[in-house]
């Protein structure tokens, strides 16, 4: 059934994908089966279907086209703008797309805090709110070449970006804003790689207690998938990994997913684990202790620690030669694959060489700027036999297309070019010098090749030497 509540947009279709994915679906499936749920804003069909299979669902959307499509699937639909939401109440409100797409172009444009107030009012006493909040300073924003305040999409009719001061900027402020509305946070998770389609959610406690290395690696791999070939300012993998290791993981996450409830209720209605990955909890799989191999290798390269670098390379090639450095966690001398399901890469060393070169990282072999030469050196440093690796070629994995790396490559190329030019000049001078020496030697050989000539030239040399010496004395 569809109810038009006012402010609906008759011919509008959302131009950005709805919130969803396997992980968000898992989260909503943890709601009690008998709960009446309002799904506020665009969410993907699978998520709504999963909820509808459990109990009564009402969807709130601003697009009439989408409202019709939803109604056709059998769920109740409210179509219109958030301020028109009336006195109806639900056991749970799911707003995993955030509050940015709840108001239509018609009528008041609520800011973040006002939107939260309306969503809260839609809860019955003791009701539960599932809310995603985008982090305006999250990794996805920090690496985005486009500014949130200059978006030209049809949906960006009010591109406030980070200028909505009511939107909380830290996990602590988010909890405080919820408390202002009488909402108690039961569970709080930092999400990667994007707020609308997370594949990794962890609690700040998990980030603090670790294993930080593995969690940092997981954020990096989540971002690697989402940002393969995407244009970015800088590599989001390094940024998030450094943030997690520095204790700023939650603060720089793409967003936050919070489960909160209204009084009176003492126990939360849904229980979520500390780490959610892929399509649900880790389950039996424990996260390995230790640091990501790629980061350890880079650290050894940057600090010029060749002994450590050789140890890592040797251990890697002995333990998991076909796993890439970004998929291995190292704990002392133990090398463990982070995700054992990733396809084998016989050219793993070459891929790391490529990371060194394209990332512009300082490393112990700066004069070797060719991928094949650097791979061959790494191969030798790993203690592998033979001069050239049998497997040298492979498909290069898609990696974030980073502006910072472009800059670095430009700088490196300019330097190489300048070096090549100076080298040409150097050889030119050397050649000229050698040519002169050769000419002199040839003249001497010619002169000394017959006896009379030899005597004559010897005499000439003697006279010339005397004249030179006299001149020198005269100068003194």
């Amino acid at each position, binding site marked *: 059934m569809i109810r038009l509540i006012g402010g609906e947009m008759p011919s509008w279709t959302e131009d950005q994908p709805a919130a969803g994915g396997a992980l968000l679906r898992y989260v909503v499936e943890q709601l009690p089966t008998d709960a009446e749920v309002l799904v506020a804003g665009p969410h993907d069909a699978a998520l709504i279907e999963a909820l509808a299979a459990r109990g009564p669902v009402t969807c709130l959307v601003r697009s009439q086209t989408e409202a019709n499509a939803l109604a056709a699937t059998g769920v109740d639909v409210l179509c219109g703008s958030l301020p028109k939401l009336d006195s109806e109440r639900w056991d749970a409100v799911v707003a995993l797309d955030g509050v940015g797409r709840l108001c239509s172009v018609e009528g008041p444009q609520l800011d973040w805090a006002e939107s939260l107030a309306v969503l809260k009012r839609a809860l019955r006493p003791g009701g539960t709110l599932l809310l995603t909040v985008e982090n305006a300073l999250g990794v996805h924003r920090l690496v985005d070449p486009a500014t949130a305040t200059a978006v030209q999409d049809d949906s960006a009719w009010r591109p406030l970006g980070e200028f909505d001061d009511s939107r909380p900027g830290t996990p602590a402020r988010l909890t405080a804003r919820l408390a202002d509305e009488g909402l108690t946070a039961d569970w709080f998770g930092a999400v990667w790689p994007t707020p609308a389609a997370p594949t990794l959610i962890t609690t700040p406690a998990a980030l603090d207690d670790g294993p930080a290395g593995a969690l940092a690696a997981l954020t990096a791999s989540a971002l690697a998938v989402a940002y393969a070939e995407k244009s970015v300012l800088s590599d989001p993998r390094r940024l998030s990994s450094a943030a997690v290791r520095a204790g700023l993981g939650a603060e720089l996450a793409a967003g936050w997913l919070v489960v909160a409830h209204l009084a009176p209720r003492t126990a939360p209605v849904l229980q979520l684990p500390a780490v959610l990955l892929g399509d649900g909890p880790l389950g039996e799989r424990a996260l390995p202790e230790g640091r990501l191999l790629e980061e350890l290798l880079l650290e050894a390269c940057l600090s010029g620690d*060749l002994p450590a670098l050789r140890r890592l390379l040797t251990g890697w090639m002995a333990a998991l030669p076909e796993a890439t450095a970004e998929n291995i966690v190292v704990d002392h001398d133990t090398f463990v694959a982070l995700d054992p399901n990733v396809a084998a890469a016989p050219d793993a060393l070459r891929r790391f060489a490529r990371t060194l070169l394209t990332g512009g990282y300082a490393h*112990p072999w700066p004069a070797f700027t060719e991928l094949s030469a650097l791979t061959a*050196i790494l191969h030798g440093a790993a203690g592998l036999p033979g*001069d050239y690796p049998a497997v040298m070629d492979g498909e290069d994995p898609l990696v974030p297309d980073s502006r910072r790396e472009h800059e670095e490559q430009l700088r490196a190329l300019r330097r*190489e070019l300048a070096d090549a030019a100076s080298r040409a000049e150097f*050889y030119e001078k050397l050649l000229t010098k050698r040519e002169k020496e050769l000419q002199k030697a040839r003249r001497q050989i010619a002169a000394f090749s017959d006896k009379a000539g030899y005597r004559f030239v010897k005499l000439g040399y003697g006279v010339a030497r005397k004249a030179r010496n006299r001149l020198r004395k005269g100068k003194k």
Partner: protein
Amino acid sequence: MHHANHFYGHAHVLAEYCGLDPAKPPRIDGYVQHGWNVVDGLGPGTPYAPGKPIFLWSEQTRRRAWSMGRRQATVIGAPFLYLLEFAAPPVDPVRRGTIWYPFHGWERQDVEGDHRRLIDEIMATEQGPVTFCLYWHEYRNDQVRATYEKAGRVICHGYRGNQWLDTDIRFLHNQLAELRAHERVASNRLSSAIFYGVAAGCRPAVYGDPMQLESEDLSTAERIRRQWPELHGKHPDPAAAGPAALAELGAGYLASPAELRTMFGWAHDRAAAAA
């Protein structure tokens, strides 16, 4: 690349380590540090082809080279350490006395100082027999050699070579054999010989009139004394002196033969193409 690569038979030792003919080392596509110094590892005034790799002994030297604008440096450790990797053990393992390296001049700078007084101090300090090892420059000076011959055995490891000519390619081999025959290695200046001695199992000492090169600025010599006090004195503590000496040689940083072959441009296909 540069004739200094062949000094002391360095290129020859490295070729042997890489499994190539030590008599005919292929051209090294870069510059191998030929002696210990406290600058960028290259000899002063070495004409450098920009962008070519510089192969240095130690990480400390690499950092210093970087600070001096040398960007293409790779640490490989001293060639002497490579020799230790494959040299046969000494025939006679007994060590006796001290091998003493008086600070040497070179082709363009003579050393100034009183050799006689230095010898007296050495003989008063050393317990066992003393072997004096002179650099070829002093060794060929009959007067200087005779002064030392009065006090002990006098040797010379050979001629380091110049412009690829007359290089004694067994220089380091000779030096290793002599070092292994002595308990102590000593000099009046901290130098490669002291470091090599430590690597070859000698206890080091640096004492006596440090002498002076013609028109030498002594600030560097003084800096060296300040930086490595653990290596100076008549009887430095080997526990502190040993690691300091080995670090200067780049112990622990040696590259595998495969790495060296690639870095030097000695990999099989390239070496074959160049031949």
